[in-house]
């Protein structure tokens, strides 16, 4: 197909090592560091990043001028210019539009927190979330990033990876323990993923946060491409075994199936 060759050409050049612009990298390191700290001063940031204070100051001032940081009493927070970029980036994700109404319905039907998570660069990003009546203070937010090995959505992704990519993923990192339940042994994780593949649903039984259970199922399109995962999480007391192992998985199967069909036929659906 002609479309494929165009894609091949534009993606062909992956060896970017030589022409990376260092200052762009630094600017984004600074933004990431600000995000991790909510609000931060120049001195603290310079120390954390091991950069000269004057350099950090120039970056912060430039980013604040352009609206990507907000300055207040000598401290910096992320600016809404980033929200505009982020929201636009999300709007560009087809899965967001197709899944959103179903995630809303799932939150409504369960009363709990439902999320659409996509995978980028080996991590899960919450693209969208909705909360039901039971949830007062959601523990995660849109844009949050999570490790794959300890979350339900992450395990749903990993289970869909071909063997060589899973090997590469596991060779690439240590499986960090977030709770006593986190699976940190690669072989144990492989076994767990094989169960995920059989059932079409992944569980996080207090493996990411103590006292929280989460169930997720991967969303693929009809050509088999992995698009994301949809999850439902709740505190332990509202997620007893029957609900955790049976009711929520069955709801997820319904929702994921609908999202997959709607994705395939999105051009033929007036809902979009």
């Amino acid at each position, binding site marked *: 197909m002609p479309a494929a060759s165009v894609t091949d050409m534009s993606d062909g050049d992956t060896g970017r090592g030589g022409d990376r612009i260092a200052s762009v990298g630094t600017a984004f390191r600074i933004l990431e560091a600000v995000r991790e700290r909510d609000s931060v001063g120049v001195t603290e940031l310079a120390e954390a990043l091991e950069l000269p204070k004057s350099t950090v100051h120039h970056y912060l001032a430039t980013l604040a001028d352009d609206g990507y940081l907000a300055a207040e009493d000598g401290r910096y927070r992320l600016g809404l210019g980033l929200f505009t970029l982020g929201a636009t980036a999300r709007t560009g994700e087809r899965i967001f539009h197709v899944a959103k109404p179903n995630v809303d319905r799932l939150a409504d039907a369960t009363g709990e927190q439902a999320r659409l998570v996509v995978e980028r660069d080996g991590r899960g990003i919450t693209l969208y979330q909705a909360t039901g009546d039971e949830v007062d203070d959601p523990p995660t937010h849109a844009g949050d990033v999570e490790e794959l090995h300890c979350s339900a959505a992450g395990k749903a992704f990993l289970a869909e990876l071909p063997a060589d990519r899973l090997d590469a993923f596991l060779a690439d990192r240590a499986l960090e323990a977030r709770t006593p339940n986190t699976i940190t042994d690669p072989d144990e994780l492989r076994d767990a993923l094989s169960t995920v593949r059989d059932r079409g649903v992944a569980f996080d039984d207090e493996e990411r946060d103590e006292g929280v259970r989460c169930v997720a199922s991967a969303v693929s399109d009809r*050509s088999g491409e992995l698009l994301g995962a949809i999850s439902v999480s709740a505190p332990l007391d509202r997620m007893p075994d029957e609900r955790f192992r049976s009711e929520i998985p069955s709801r997820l199967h*319904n929702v994921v*199936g*609908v999202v997959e*069909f709607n994705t395939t036929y999105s051009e033929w659906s007036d809902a979009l």
Partner: protein
Amino acid sequence: MDDDAPRMDIGLVGLGEHGETHAEFLEELDHTVHAVDLDPRAKERFRERYDATMYEGLDELFAAGIDAAIISTPNKFHETAALKAFDAGLDVLIEKPLAHDLASAERIVERAEETDSICMCGYFHRFRNRCRLAKAYVESGRLGEVTHVDARYMRRRGVPGLGTWYTSREIAGGGALIDVGSFVVDLVLDFYDWPELEAVIATTRSDFGDREDYAYLEMWGEDDEAKMYDVEDSVTAFCEFEGGRTAHLEVAWAANARRRHEYNIRGTEAGVSLDITTPLESVDPSGRNHRDFRLYEARSDVVDHYVDSELVPPANDPFRDELATFLAAVETGQSPDRCTAEEALAVQRVLDRIYEAADRGRV
């Protein structure tokens, strides 16, 4: 089929099981098949099996100079394809049910009328000789006044492709009722000559879908990876139509009961029992599996006695006759005499009322 009928260019939208059956008959009749689907797997399978021109999208297909379109997508997507086809000036045959819900069905009929297009809906059992004959007996008055129809479409273990879109409320619009039950409603309404539904009591059940021990003894369609199941697998409804005429409907994809598809039409002078039970895997042109087609009467010559007569019409292939009727309608520009969009909309209204009654009963 008239061998002199012109060869036409027909666009198939949706290349699943029904799309393939249409393609087979169209190729047999030397029509040219143009095809589109958005599901890459369905497209690939179709491309391997049929000699058709493939398209990337609806606009491209409808601009390709075709004579008519046949839509057999998942129910929820009938409307988009149908409206675009009407707007492109095409006549359309839509697989049954007309749409996944009543509002969508109404929009389809409205646009067909606005654009003055022929719109037919694939309730093919109406083309079955047995069903046509039963209807003719009703119309002739031979049965007297028909006051009750007892209708059953029951499979023992026949949930369609457990886990495909047929078992998703959002995509299909419902379960056993909107799938096979719509055939039953269509025939019952036709026997009664399309009366208003005055009252309905109904119950829907979901007894089999989420069972891990489900025995896959009979299947329709492929068993897909998706595991959707949020619809009913059986329905019982009692309908009262204008004039106090009634119908009892039993519909099941799965039930611990004998598999059957039959109608007992009870008139004041005579009754007809019509059994059109078919094997699951085909629309069965042969009629070999049809057990019973009888006229039940009582006479008083010499002694009062019963007369049970067997009715033996020739078997036909209703699916093919439906397609031929549609193609003839496209050719002549005359709307077909049955399975019109208006009738299909009446069916959809009754389906909607039955679901509504079942929901009400659940409160």
